[in-house]
């Protein structure tokens, strides 16, 4: 982060207020750094114009691996005996599909969890600069960065949108 910049957190009481501020920030030279919300808000999501999460690819990969893992496990264990009962095939497709299906779900969920924690970069145990405990309760936070000489303008911008503001000191690590 350049040394001559400053971050201001706008703390909003409503998601609409936060969404309007985000929309407004797009038309300014200031950069949106982070947005905090107590709920997954559609209004904010639209305002941020975020791309679709890639978690689904992890889920899909997990599911495909799971299906083959389950099916092959059942087939492998059956071939260890190679016991033909009533002329039925040793590698039986229908019952092994059930094992494959259960493994598909199990591994898809593992993939989903892996995708979630890797994409969202969880867990995060380091203190987040500017985090306000009210963000988990009833407040929405929009953190924006500007050059030092525009600090007053950005603060006024947030206040005009109905926010409470505070300067956030970012520590590079």
């Amino acid at each position, binding site marked *: 982060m350049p040394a001559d910049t400053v971050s201001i957190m706008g703390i909003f009481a409503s*998601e609409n207020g936060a969404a309007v501020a985000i929309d407004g920030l797009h038309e300014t030279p200031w950069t949106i750094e982070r947005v905090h919300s107590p709920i997954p808000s559609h*209004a904010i999501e639209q305002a941020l114009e975020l791309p679709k999460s890639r978690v689904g690819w992890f889920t899909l990969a997990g599911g495909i691996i799971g299906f083959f893992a389950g099916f092959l496990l059942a087939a492998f264990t059956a071939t260890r005996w190679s016991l033909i009962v009533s002329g039925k095939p040793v590698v039986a497709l229908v019952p092994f599909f059930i094992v494959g299906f*259960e493994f598909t779900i199990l591994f898809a969920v593992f993939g989903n969890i892996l995708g979630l924690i890797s994409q969202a970069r969880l867990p995060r145990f380091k203190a987040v600069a500017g985090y306000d405990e009210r963000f*988990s309760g009833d407040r929405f936070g929009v953190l924006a960065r500007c050059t030092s000489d525009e600090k007053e303008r950005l603060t006024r911008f947030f206040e005009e949108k109905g926010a409470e503001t505070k300067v956030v000191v970012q520590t590079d690590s």
Partner: protein
Amino acid sequence: MEQTLTYQSIDDTVLDTLLPPRRSYWVVVSLLFAGVLMGGACWMVQILVGIGVGGQNNPVHWGTYLINFVFWVGIAHSGTLISAILHLFRAGWRNPIARAAETMTVFAVCTAGLYPFIHLGRVWMVYYMLPVPNQRTLWPNFQSPLMFDVVAISTYLTVSSLFWYTGMLPDLAIIRDHATGVRRKIFSVLSLGWTGEFEIWRHYTRGYLFFAALATPLVISVHSVVSWDFALSVVPGWHTTIFAPYFVAGAIHSGLAMVVTLMIPLRVIFRYENIITDRVLESVAKTIIFTGLIVGFAYGTEIFIAWYSHNPIEMESFRWRAFGDYSLEYWIMVSCNVLIPLLLFFKKIRTNIRVLFIISLLVNVGMWYERFVIIIGSVAHDFLPHAWGLYSPSWVEFGIMIGSFCLFFFLFVLFVKHMPSVSMTEMKETLHEGDSHAG
């Protein structure tokens, strides 16, 4: 509901439930724990003396252990129905009860999962059910529905536990932000450092949606697999293609009843009237009517197919169910699962909380007896008259059964006092989008 609640009031109401409990709470916990110990002691007796101390014998080789296994798996399913399927359908009324229903799922699967261990007798041989290499290269037979069960139930326990925990992350952060000292540290770890950043929400909502989408077919497959324990045999009364949908519908029926049984006391004790509203309970009651009708249809279809098949053994099996030695159990099943839920068609009845609670208890009783009738009734009276025989549970089985009920309620009671029993985040989502909700 929407007018009176704010984000702040939701947090306050739920966080108040986590305040240090009164002595009466610990009395209840102690009593339930004593029940668990008693059940454990009965199991110990069985391990020391042998599986013969149970009442199972030829021809009824599956007794209360399998009845309770199927019963608890069924109870578990409604939690997933409420949390996953209704989430996909965006049914707002599921939000206040979803957390408790998911909790019910996890603890019910844990309780159900104990029964195969108990029924094994020689429980130390449990590893034979797992696909682990051993010196005799004995592998599980994955063509057996009992092995499908092992895979399905362990998958279900893993998935529902992860779904439950993931859903709690934002709420754990709320508790962390209101806690101090060691408690704050514990909840910091449990919440994985959740900050509500939109970058996290973006992946979280997507991941949660996939969770729901995956849990939905899983819940249907798991109880179908449980039904195949019976349906893939040739025993009259078991060998039927209706079993999978019939078991799934029954599971949802019993689970919904258990949700009501748990929610009504929770609402009274924790003063959740503004959150678990009359409308929410009424919606569950309406769903119980629907599942009750499906279950009733399944009972009728079984009898019709037995008659239509012209198979004398099948016909005798169903005649005996209704008029034989276990006819009392059969008619308890029909009355509690099909006839009594019809009372909920009347608005006055389904909006009367006390009556609704009693009906939910009766449905639970009826669904236990449904499992009794299916599991005991079919093998007690199958092909050959000389092989017919009756069954009654022994004191060891009763002890283990009471212990399992105590275990379920023990875990649930501990949970609701130490973790958020209502999802604060999902409740906030149900309030009107965009408004200011600051306290």
